Every structure is written in structure tokens, then in C-alpha cells.
């Protein structure tokens, strides 16, 4: 065995709570090693230790046989450990090349040698087979391209170990396959990759070995091809999950939402569909097909050029999210950090934020009613917080998502649009969100789910609307829909 990184018996506590308990981890040269575990399993703390962001309380780390002590981020980067972050950290006003060489600019007596970094960056991007101009400002790049720049930056740091945290969460299928080609190239060059993801199909496609953490403890390490998925999931959650997508049959009610010929230039055109009470409509398509754009226009976060949105058969006049809520349209954004919650407000205050007028009199709030309703919602959605007074900032992704859904539900919508409802959420919490969607269906809400994960769309929807380049190419019933024909219509 040719080990590049060895971690022995690492432990770490935060204010008395053991977050990591005696973790051992071995990374071979040139392997892709998936690290799995639910949110809160300790993955991110573990990664922060490897990055030198925090110091372990006990245990040892060896890189290429040398023990590393009291390191910091800069030090770890120099030694060859780089991380591709879930949320990309780049200076948006600088160019691609300036970002790649940030902190290691070539200069002579402090005069920057700009042409040199552009030349080197362009070459680097070429070896990655991506067509990005090194002169472009970072802010003009798509998320996928920014990720490629991050990888280029890691390579330019002569990284021996690259940590990828949910690298595909914002990528389309084509971009994912580009990324996987790059990962394979990296492997061949002897670079090791620690791959963190909640997407099972990717783990099986790209990884050589899998390590599972649960509740801060090391559970197991196995070769990927000897590790069946159901066993893997039960190791992660510590219990059996029989069926990830619990199917529920409901009686379809009246038509709630009707969209007629909805068009926004350059985004989408000629969109027609209906959603009934007690029905889940899935919207599928590649990234950039206009899924989110349609949702934003219906929910008042954006405008549209022509067409109609009807609720209960009545034409609406929606100019803001506030208007949309009056008509009973609730929207849960794909970007919960930017559009979902207020980080410094408590769980309670976030849940009630959209319904304030409901329990206020002459502008004054009724503390007791607010408390009761928030507690009820907190209980219904099984939000795991120390109390409803806890700041949402300090919750895990899955619980933050539940808070946002709770906020929308408390405003009593007739139709709820869930945009990527399980992005960045662990398996256990995903399952709970699926159950919740079924509950909403039973209660007679109309539900729209937008998702990049085909199994999720297939598992949860009664009908599936497929988009391709801003146009609607099919509406498939549950019996017609398969991964293959959705993809067929999505690339139409």
C-alpha cells in the first residue's frame, strides 16, 4: 500500500460535546475515497482539521509519512492539501487568472507579472479541457465553470490531496461528467481525492473506497464495489430505510394552479400546465433549462413577459413575493442561504416571518400565539434544534431547510413550489422531507417539485413536466416516466 495521508485516532470536542471520537482514516495515493455520513456525522469538522482550520484535541496526522503538528491553512496548502468548497470562495471582481494565482502572484520587486499568470492559467485550463478565458472576471462565470477554476487553482498549488465537498451540487449532468473525467485524470497523475457527497449514484460511479462516519465515530471503510447501497445507507443512518420514496395515492381535487403560455424572453417560452389539489407535479430538465426561472416568475420573485398565471381559475396580478403569498403561492428557494432564512433570527422568528400580520393586532405581536404556532410547526416538521429560540445560523442544512418549509407552510399556501428541496441534505433528512411532501399531498395542497435528481423526481411526482432549453417538451404520467425518457425529452 502506498499511503499519502494517515490519520490516527483523531478526537475533537466543542464546548464539551464530542464531535469527533477516535477517527482513523487512510488515504492511498491516486485513489478517490468517498467520505459519507449524515449531516452532523463529523465530516466537515474532520475536513477542517485536515485543512488546518482547527486543531484536533488528540490523535496524529501523517502526510507522506511525516507527522504534521500545529498546522494552519497556509501550511497545509503548501504541503499539498487543497479543498474545493461547497460554496465557492473566489474574489468575484478579479479575473480567472488572478484568482488562480491569488496569494502566489509572480512578481519582480513587487511589480506584478500579469502576462505570466494569464499564460500559465490558460494552459492549466487547457489541460483540464475546459473552455474558459482566463481574462474573464469570476462573476461572469457559471457555477460549474467557477468550480473548474477552483480545481485549476488546486492543481496550480501542486495539490497531492484534493478534498471535494459536494462538488456536483450545482452542476448539470454534462458538467458532472466533465468533472468526473478530470477526477480520473487527477487519479492517473497520482493525486488523491477525498470526495464528499450525498448523491449515491455519483459515489458508486467515481469512488474506489468508501469510509462511513456516524455521530462523530468511525464506522467502516470498504471497497466501493463490495459495498451494496442498502448496506451503505443503513450504516450511515444506523437503521434500515426500506423505501426512500414512500408512495401515497391521493384523490386529485380541483385545479389550483393553471399556467397558460407563460413566456419570458431568453428564459422560457410557451409554458402550459396545471396542478391540482393533492397532486405533485415534478419539473425536470438540465441546469439552464429554465426550471427555476419559471418558478421565480410564478412566485413573484421575477416578472414574465406574456402569458397567464391562474389560481382557482382566476387570473392573478402578481408583482412581488408578497402578492404571490396573498394568492396562496408559497415558494421554497433552491438557494436557502440567499433567499430562505434570516441567519441571526431564531427558529421561531424565521418560521413566523411570512405570517406576522396573522398574529398581530394594530402592529403589535401576540407572543403567546406566535410561540404556540412555531412550536407546533417545529414539532410537525421534526426540526432538530436545541429549542425554537436557537439561531437558524447554527442548524444543519437539513434543519435549515425544514425551517424554511415551515415558514412557507405557516403562511397557509394552496400551492407550494419546492425548488431542489433536498440539495445538500443527508439521507435521513431527505427521507423526512419526502414524507412531509406526502403529508402535504394528503392535506390537499398542490405541490410542485423542481429537482436535478431524477430518482427524486420519479419517486415523488404524479406527473412530470420536462423542459429543454426553456421550452416544454413533455408532460409524462407516472406510468410513462423513466429516467431514460426524461433524459430523452430533456435533451430534445
Amino acid at each position, binding site marked *: 500500500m502506498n499511503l499519502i495521508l494517515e490519520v490516527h485516532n483523531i478526537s475533537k470536542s466543542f464546548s464539551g460535546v464530542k464531535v469527533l471520537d477516535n477517527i482513523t482514516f487512510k488515504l492511498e495515493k491516486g485513489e478517490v475515497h468517498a467520505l459519507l455520513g449524515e449531516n452532523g456525522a463529523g465530516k466537515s469538522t474532520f475536513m477542517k482539521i485536515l485543512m488546518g482550520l482547527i486543531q484536533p484535541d488528540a490523535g496524529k496526522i501523517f502526510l507522506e509519512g511525516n507527522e504534521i503538528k500545529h498546522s494552519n491553512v497556509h501550511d497545509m496548502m503548501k504541503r499539498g492539501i487543497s479543498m474545493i468548497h461547497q460554496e465557492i470562495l473566489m474574489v468575484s471582481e478579479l479575473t480567472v487568472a488572478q484568482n488562480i494565482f491569488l496569494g502566489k502572484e509572480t512578481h519582480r520587486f513587487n511589480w506584478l507579472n500579469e502576462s505570466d499568470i494569464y499564460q500559465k492559467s490558460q494552459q492549466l485550463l487547457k489541460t483540464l479541457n475546459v473552455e474558459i478565458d482566463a481574462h474573464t472576471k469570476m462573476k461572469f462565470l457559471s457555477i460549474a465553470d467557477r468550480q473548474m477554476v477552483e480545481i485549476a487553482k488546486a492543481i496550480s498549488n501542486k495539490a497531492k490531496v484534493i478534498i471535494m465537498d459536494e462538488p456536483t451540487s450545482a452542476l448539470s449532468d454534462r458538467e458532472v461528467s466533465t468533472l468526473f473525467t478530470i477526477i480520473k485524470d487527477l487519479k492517473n497523475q497520482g493525486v488523491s481525492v477525498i470526495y464528499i457527497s450525498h448523491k449515491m449514484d455519483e459515489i458508486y460511479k467515481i469512488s474506489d473506497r468508501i469510509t462511513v462516519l456516524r455521530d462523530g465515530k468511525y464506522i467502516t471503510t470498504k471497497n466501493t464495489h463490495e459495498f451494496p447501497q442498502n448496506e451503505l445507507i443503513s450504516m450511515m443512518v444506523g437503521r434500515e430505510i426500506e423505501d426512500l420514496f414512500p408512495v401515497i395515492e391521493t384523490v386529485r381535487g380541483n385545479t389550483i394552479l393553471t399556467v397558460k403560455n407563460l413566456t419570458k424572453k431568453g428564459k422560457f417560452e410557451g409554458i402550459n400546465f396545471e396542478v391540482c389539489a393533492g397532486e405533485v407535479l415534478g419539473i425536470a430538465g438540465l441546469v439552464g433549462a429554465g426550471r427555476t426561472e419559471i418558478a421565480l416568475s410564478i412566485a413573484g420573485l421575477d416578472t414574465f413577459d406574456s402569458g397567464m398565471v391562474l389560481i382557482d381559475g382566476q387570473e392573478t396580478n402578481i408583482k*412581488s*413575493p*408578497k402578492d404571490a403569498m396573498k394568492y396562496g403561492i408559497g415558494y421554497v428557494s433552491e438557494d436557502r442561504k440567499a433567499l430562505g432564512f*434570516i*441567519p441571526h433570527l431564531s427558529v421561531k422568528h424565521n418560521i413566523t416571518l411570512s405570517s406576522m400580520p396573522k398574529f398581530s393586532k394594530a*402592529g403589535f405581536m401576540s407572543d403567546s400565539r406566535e410561540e404556540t404556532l412555531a412550536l407546533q410547526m417545529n414539532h410537525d416538521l421534526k426540526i432538530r434544534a436545541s429549542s425554537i429560540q436557537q439561531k437558524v445560523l447554527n442548524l444543519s442544512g437539513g434543519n435549515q431547510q425544514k425551517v424554511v418549509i415551515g415558514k412557507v407552510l405557516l*403562511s397557509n399556501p394552496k400551492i407550494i413550489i419546492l425548488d431542489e428541496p433536498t440539495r445538500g441534505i443527508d439521507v435521513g433528512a431527505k427521507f423526512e422531507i419526502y414524507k412531509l411532501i406526502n403529508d402535504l399531498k394528503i392535506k390537499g395542497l398542490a405541490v410542485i417539485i423542481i429537482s436535478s435528481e431524477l430518482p427524486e423526481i420519479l419517486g415523488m411526482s404524479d406527473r412530470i413536466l420536462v423542459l429543454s432549453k426553456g421550452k416544454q417538451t413533455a408532460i409524462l404520467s407516472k406510468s410513462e416516466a423513466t429516467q431514460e425518457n426524461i433524459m430523452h425529452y430533456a435533451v430534445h
Partner: protein
Amino acid sequence: MQSIKKLKEYGIFIAFLLICITLTIISPQFLTISNWLIIFTQVAINALLAFGVTFVIITGGIDLSIGSVVAVSGIVVATLAHPDQFPLIIPILGGLLTGLFIGILNGFLITKSKIAPFIVTLGIMTIGRGVALIISNGRPISNLADSFNFIGGGEILGIPFPIIILIIVFSVCSIVLKKTVFGRYVYAVGGNEQAAWASGINVNQVKMAVYALCGLLSGLAGILLTSRITTGQPNAGVGFELDAIAAAVIGGTSTTGGIGTITGTLFGVILIGVLNNGLDLLNVSSYYQQVAMGIIIIGAVLLDSWNLKTNR
């Protein structure tokens, strides 16, 4: 461990107590009722301004124009407050409406033009000062009615009237921020403007309201100051905005928005007042007082950021 955390949390409060204890030991005058009445009377104007600017800062904005608003409203008030000219209510309304008007103007420009609040209120600050000088022809306006001078100099049951105003405004602001829907929206807008908007909050309305409120309170401060010095001064209030912002920041208001309380700001106001009063009692030159103020501002924010980190 726990006690260290506590110490950090109340660090600024402990520092305040230490200052008070030291002053009590050194100067026998410090811990007397009359001295504290002086302190509170002196800080009343800064308190009104600081409460207003706290609302603005919590929404993630800033208002640099409040010092100039004090001057303009002061000039308007003084013009209307000559003896036997109008009933008392007219100069008071004049001062309040002047402040409110400028506040609404700030809010309007900020929400409609999308120019940064710093720039808008910097511009209005300069315009306001100019307007005060134009109206007054650059000269102080004196000869004010006795009934008007009661506002800044009078007493009720031995309590100076400015302190009574301070207590009323403190209570109202505190309740508005804590107990009303508007107050909650103020935090939401400052915490995450986009998410607040997507949650159905009329963000522009909230912003308009905080600048209007800040203007109104600055107008009130202008009335109080004019009455206290029994003159309308076009050059009054220079630098007041910075004292108000300092008090809010010392009291734990985050300049990036979303965090802050009226009680915290009151504490900041009192700390500044006690420091100035104590150093006066000890005959320390005002030059050194400024140095001390600066140290307190940076120290308070340092303690706060330290707190945020350990609470993660």
C-alpha cells in the same frame, strides 16, 4: 470555562463597572444623585440620535445626516419660537416635521435610487448644513420664549425634563423594536434582505420607515438642543452622528445589520456619558477624553467579535 465565557459576554459591562468603581473611589462627587442627573441630562440628545440610528444600522444601513438634521430643525424651531409669536406646539411641530421630512427624503433616495445609504446620507448631511446656514444667514437665532426654554432647562418633580423625554423615547423605541411586527421586519431586512423580501416583506417600506424614524428623532434632538442652549445654531450638531453611531456600536449593534437592541444602545450612550463626566471630574483634558473614547469603541467591538466567534 463557563466563567470565562460569562466574562466575555459581559466584558463591556464589567469594564463599565470598573470605570464607575474607580471614579467613585477617586472622586467623591461621582456617585451622587445630582451628578447622575447631570450625566443623564447631558446624554439625552445623543441618546435620541443613537436610538434612531440603531434602527437604521440594524437594517444594514447608516445615517450620517443626523447631525445636520439637528442643526436644520434647530434653526426652524428657533425661527418659530420667539416670544408671543406662536403657541408652543408650532415650533415643536416645525422641528419634528423638518426632521421627518429629511428622514423621508433619505429613505426615498435610498430605496428608489439604490445608491448606498452612506453616500445618500453623506450628501444630505452636506446639503442640510448648507440649508441651515442659508435659512439663518449664518447667524445664531436667539430671543426664544420662556415656555420653549422649559423643554431643555425645566424640571418636573426635580427631574430635568430632557431625562423625562429620554425615558419616554427609550420605552417607545424599545417596545417598537421588540414587540411590533415592524420591529421584527427591521431585524429581518438587516439579517438577509433578499430572504426577507422573498418572505413577503415590503423591504422598501421598512427602510423608508427607519430613515423617517431616525429623522424624526433627530428633529426632536434639534428641539431639545435649541431649547437647552436657548439659541438656534446653524453650526450645531457637527459630529453628533459619529457619537450616536459610536453609542450604538458600543451597545452591540452590528454594522453589518441584523443585530442590536435599544437597551444596548442606551448602555453605550451612558458609558460614553460616564466616561466624559468622570474625566471632567478628574480634570483630564478633553484631548485625552477623545483618545479614551476611541479605545472604548474599538475595545467594545473587539469584545463583540470575540463573543460571536466563541458562540459558534
